[in-house]
């Protein structure tokens, strides 16, 4: 690994996003539009205050999962990955490059939704904005890491897009967003316990409801961070210098 190469990779990925104006606009504005829509659909400040933070955690996760899995699939199919693997680029340079570049993009995305939610939509947040942003950023990185991993199992862009419902929707159903996790049957609750998204949603709920950053909140954040690292290690294992 070499910091200069990692940063060159970050710059390269950011240039790629910058050239693609439509994707950039979709990443940054769609979550804000959805948040505004949610506000008027719910039409109840108390209920909105409960839902908004969970969606704040969900948007960067889903967006970054999709963008990363397509971008890395393109690297694999266009031959640029094979080319990079013959060069003095470490696997970690590439993985961190994607993580940092899309992490920064996610910060802009979350920053805008959060600003709109807290001003125009009057979101009342009990906890700290910094902790909420940290948790949202970790969710984005979780999306990046899982996207990197999932792209190894897709041969086409059709398959890569279908990985989203396959890997994300089950986590969403089990995350406690729809039904509280302690009301699920034992098997489902156990499944819910091993899904990283459950901790992401739980962390978001805790930031909203309690002013103090409790130990349970930090545990959730640590679990998400651990899952990011685990997914990155798994993703690194799918990057091969030699192929058949």
């Amino acid at each position, binding site marked *: 690994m070499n910091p200069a*190469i990692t940063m060159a990779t970050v710059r390269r990925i950011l240039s790629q996003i910058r050239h693609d104006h439509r994707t950039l606009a979709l990443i940054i504005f769609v979550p804000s539009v959805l948040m505004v829509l949610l506000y008027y659909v719910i039409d109840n400040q108390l209920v909105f205050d409960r839902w908004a933070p969970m969606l704040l955690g969900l948007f960067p996760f889903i967006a970054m999962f999709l963008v990363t899995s397509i971008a890395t699939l393109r690297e694999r199919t266009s031959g640029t990955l094979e080319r990079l693997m*013959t060069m003095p680029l470490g696997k970690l340079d590439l993985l961190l490059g994607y993580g940092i570049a899309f992490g920064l993009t996610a910060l802009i995305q979350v920053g805008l939704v959060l600003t709109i939610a807290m001003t125009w939509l009057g979101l009342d947040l009990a906890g700290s904005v910094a902790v909420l942003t940290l948790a949202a950023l970790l969710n984005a990185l979780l999306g990046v890491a899982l996207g990197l991993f999932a792209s190894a199992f897709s041969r086409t862009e059709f398959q890569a897009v279908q990985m989203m419902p396959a890997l994300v929707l089950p986590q969403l159903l089990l995350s406690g967003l729809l039904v509280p996790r302690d009301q699920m049957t034992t098997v489902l609750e156990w499944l819910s316990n091993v899904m990283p998204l459950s901790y992401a949603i739980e962390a978001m709920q805790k930031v909203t409801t309690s002013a103090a950053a409790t130990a349970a909140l930090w545990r959730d954040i640590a679990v998400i961070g651990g899952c990011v690292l685990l997914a990155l290690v798994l993703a690194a294992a799918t990057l091969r210098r030699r192929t058949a």
Partner: protein
Amino acid sequence: MMSSAVEVVDLRVVRGGHEVLHGLNFLIPEGSIVGLLGPSGCGKTTLIRSIVGVQIVASGTVTVLGSPAGSPVLRDRVGYSTQDPAVYADLTVIENMRYFASVLRAPRADAERVIGEVGLTEQAGQVVSTLSGGQLSRASLAVALLGQPQLLVLDEPTVGLDPVLRNELWRLFHQLAEDGVTLIVSSHVMDEAARCQRLLLMRDGEFLFDDSPDALRAYTGLGDMEKAFVHLIEEKEAIQV
């Protein structure tokens, strides 16, 4: 004595359950241009991938510039250009070159140099996806020229180029060889064979011929490379029958 840039001993490669390279042996001395020729599907690309070190090989050894193919020490000494252009379609030509130059830790000015060498100066600021097919393959070739590679492995670098550009690229290849760079250039166009110092003619994962173009002409008594190649194939099949 000249040391060898590439040394291949009994190389066998299996892909999809079939052996596609059947025990190849050859040496390539430093500073020479070797043409790897043969019909599509004969194993040229698999051999090239083995030399660059991205191919899983079944048995045999490939030694490049004194180290096993694919060794970390070779990563900034071997330039590789794949058959399908491997550049970022959503970046400009210059952005592509700057990125690959930073990965290779090559000087920043290298980006402009290689763009000039492949004749893309006018297209430097253009997004790669808007280039023509020939420009695209030259952009991909330019990446292989970044830094100071001692071995250049180019898979079909002149496909789809007009004759003038093709001439210019071959002049560049000869210039590089004079400076001591070793080049392995694959092609399925037989008239490019005459431009190489040494020919490896491949068919079905084996070498039919390994010598200079003059030796091929002398051996077959034919001036035309295409006819000489066909002659070799017929001769070999006659022996097998």
